[in-house]
């Protein structure tokens, strides 16, 4: 926003900034810090409460003098957090890898390969992207029935397949967006050298898609990690509990022990924030790309 330095150089005679620069910036900084602090306070509050005793939370939650780790002992001993993480990890790794690979294959065919029936290609592209407009909630009950009919109910596939389908429109959108702008010369040279489709798609173009792939992997992982509506509908076996399902049960599980509930919540919250901190570049880049380009 601030262009004052350059303006001054170009027009040395006048047009002095109306307000002193230092003061203006100072105010903006203070407001920005305060607003951000207020916005992250709710998440911090859970972490703070997790170190408090249960009696204190009920009686005087703002008294932060007696902090200890007892809640974490209770939480880790009672809850099977490792099971939730394991299940979510299995669901995420299979559905994300398969989903991204299939989406890439479809996008490659739809943008880089020659179709004798162009209407078919355009129709398929529209068909695959139309899913972006349809709320996932309309799918819950039919998918539940479908899983029973296919005999998948109670297996990981019951969630993996709808996860792939639900993410496909977005994945195809991002891949086709990037592939459409991608120069064909490299592929043409490879074709002259005798490259086959497999080589072209996987060894030449796919490695160049690395930034998109990274963004999509992060997005898909976040999606599966946080997904609740499908999980609550399609899973009834406690051994298959995912992280989201686990969180939903905390309230019932710890109906009196709020300290343990907060400790459990923190144990879910911190890995999510950590993952985000490591990959935040890809998250924000992918988000703005998808929004501005799509």
């Amino acid at each position, binding site marked *: 926003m601030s262009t004052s330095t350059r303006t001054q150089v170009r027009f040395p005679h006048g047009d002095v900034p109306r307000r002193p620069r230092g003061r203006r910036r100072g105010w903006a900084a203070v407001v920005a810090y305060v607003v951000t602090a207020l916005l992250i306070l709710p998440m911090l509050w859970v972490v703070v409460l997790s170190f408090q005793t249960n009696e204190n939370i009920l009686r005087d939650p703002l008294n932060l003098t007696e902090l200890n780790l007892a809640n974490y002992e209770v939480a880790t001993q009672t809850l099977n957090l490792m099971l939730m993480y394991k299940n979510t990890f299995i669901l995420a790794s299979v559905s994300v890898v398969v989903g991204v690979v299939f989406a890439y294959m479809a996008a490659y065919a739809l943008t880089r390969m020659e179709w004798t029936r162009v209407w078919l290609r355009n129709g398929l592209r529209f068909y695959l992207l139309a899913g972006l407009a349809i709320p996932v909630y309309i799918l819950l*009950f039919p998918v539940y029935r479908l899983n029973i009919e296919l005999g998948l109910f109670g297996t990981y596939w019951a969630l993996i397949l709808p996860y792939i389908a639900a993410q496909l429109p977005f994945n195809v959108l991002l891949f086709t967006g990037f592939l459409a702008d991608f120069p064909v010369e490299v592929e043409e040279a490879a074709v002259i050298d005798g490259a086959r489709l497999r080589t072209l798609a996987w060894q030449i173009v796919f490695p160049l898609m690395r930034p998109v792939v990274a963004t999509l992997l992060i997005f898909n992982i976040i999606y599966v990690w946080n997904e609740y509506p499908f999980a609550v509908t399609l899973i009834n076996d406690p051994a298959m509990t995912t992280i989201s399902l686990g969180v939903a049960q905390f309230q019932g599980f710890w109906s009196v022990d709020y300290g343990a509930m907060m400790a459990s919540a923190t144990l879910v919250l911190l890995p999510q924030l950590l993952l985000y901190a490591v990959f935040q570049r890809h998250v924000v880049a992918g988000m703005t790309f998808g929004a501005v380009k799509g």
Partner: protein
Amino acid sequence: MRWLSRPWQLAGMVLPALIIYSLYFTYPVVYSVLQSFTDAKAFGSSTIVGAENYTSMVDDPLFWSSLRNTAIILVISLCLLLPGAFGLALLLGRRIRGAGVLRTMVFAPNVVAPILIGLIWVFILDPHLGLLNELLRLVGVAEPPAWIGGTTLSPYSIGSVYVWQTVGFIMTIFYAGLKMLPGDVMEAAELDGAAGLKRLRYVTVPMLRETIGITTVLVITGSFKIFELVVQLTGGGPVHLSETLVSYTYHVTFGLQNYGYGMALAVITSVLGVAVALGYLAFLRRKATAA
């Protein structure tokens, strides 16, 4: 590259995605629509009842309260989220020490599971043990309001939590839009005497029309989709009066196992969400050509 595009090669590339998508996306949508015209229940066979499920919505008070709650959440989101996120984008787009870190932090709630966000906010909004009322009592409010659990304030609270969770997301889109504005236009505007609010009103906002359109559609469709926050904050209670369209649909389908009616609700909710978003886009386009 015609030689490598034989039909079987094209099919091999497209079919894996196409099959999963058709089976788990298209088929369920078609199934929902068909089911919404039957009286399918948990047990027994179903018969076609025509539009009966749709007409019975008119007499269903819970449908209307869910619609009202969804509308409240939608209006709150539009009124708070868009200006708030835009202001935040302007603020965090300035050359402030650590602005990048601040933008990262503001976005963080979007990667946390919505179901966990709901749980976190219970400990702030709960009338008895929540932080908010604790603070209100501290400053002398004897009877602080019931933010969640009651029927009056619940939708407003759900909407506000949604705003809190999503503001960083919308802010990031605005920020990207602001950064793509051509710098020379902004400088020219400043030289022409359009600084501060004036420049914002006559230069920045009109040039961001596209971005504003995208964010508004995202906010509209997002408000219709809120589910986890309702589950965690109020559970739809008391007596289902704080349900939204989506959570009420879930309750009818899986709680009452009234599948025909549930699918009709699902269809109506989807159509409403898409219609409001499309209607808004059409409105924007008309305004753009009129201007």
